[in-house]
């Protein structure tokens, strides 16, 4: 048990000795003085919502504009054997 405590304490002491980058305060101040990232993130959800809404409206519009193809086209029923009777190829003097 004592060894476990000792190991934990050593681990904590080692982590406590880690020093931050000496320019960390400069980095923090630079981040604070340039808050443009926040402006972008504020607009992001708005843009996303509007885009989503637009996509839904567009989808409904396209869906509503759909007209099924009408059955008014006339179909022609052709009986090939009627047009080209075998007798046609069999033309000899008998006919």
């Amino acid at each position, binding site marked *: 048990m004592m*060894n476990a405590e000792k*190991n*934990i304490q050593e*681990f904590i002491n080692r982590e*406590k000795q880690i020093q931050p980058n000496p320019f960390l*305060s400069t980095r923090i101040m630079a981040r604070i003085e340039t808050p443009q990232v926040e402006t972008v993130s504020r607009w992001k959800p708005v843009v996303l919502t509007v885009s989503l809404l637009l996509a839904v409206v567009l989808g409904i519009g396209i869906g509503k504009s759909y007209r099924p193809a009408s059955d008014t086209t006339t179909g022609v029923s052709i009986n090939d054997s009627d047009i080209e009777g075998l007798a046609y190829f069999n033309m000899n003097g008998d006919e």
Partner: protein
Amino acid sequence: MSDQQIIEEILKGNQTMFRLLVEKYQKMVFVTAIGFVHNKEDAEDLTQEIFVKVWESLSSFKGDSEFSTWLYRIAVNSSINSVQKKQQNHFIELAEEWIQSFFHVESGEKDSQQLLEANETDAAIQKAIDSLPVSQRTAFLLSTYDDLSQKQIADVMQRSEGAVEQLLQRAKTNLQIKLGSRVGK
């Protein structure tokens, strides 16, 4: 110049005064952060995030408590949130750990077996600390990393001193149970 005077100056529009607060407290915030994330780069990112939050909410600081207590609260809450986010990316973290341990073993600077054992012990301790319930972990880290007294921890966590004492006791018992069989030999 006291913290309260610096804050008043900042709120009047003297933005550069914030640097004084950053320079005074960055080490303290960094140590708190490293206790939660155990990594220098992550702790630096977290320290930055914490100071940005402090900057954004400085006007809400009423001065009812010490500025350092208020700062500790922000640091602890941000660290807990960061750890929770990190847990969501656990798979990537595992891959990184594997690569790191692979290269450490291959470095050959120290006896590889000895290094591997040391890494395993550290990893076990880290895992045991991270697996403590949030309130126990917070009390334990504030006590060991930041060397805060039970009274100070009670102020930061907004609990009674008795409750903090119990949390610390349970944290130590849990760590001994979790690590007793692994590193207690």
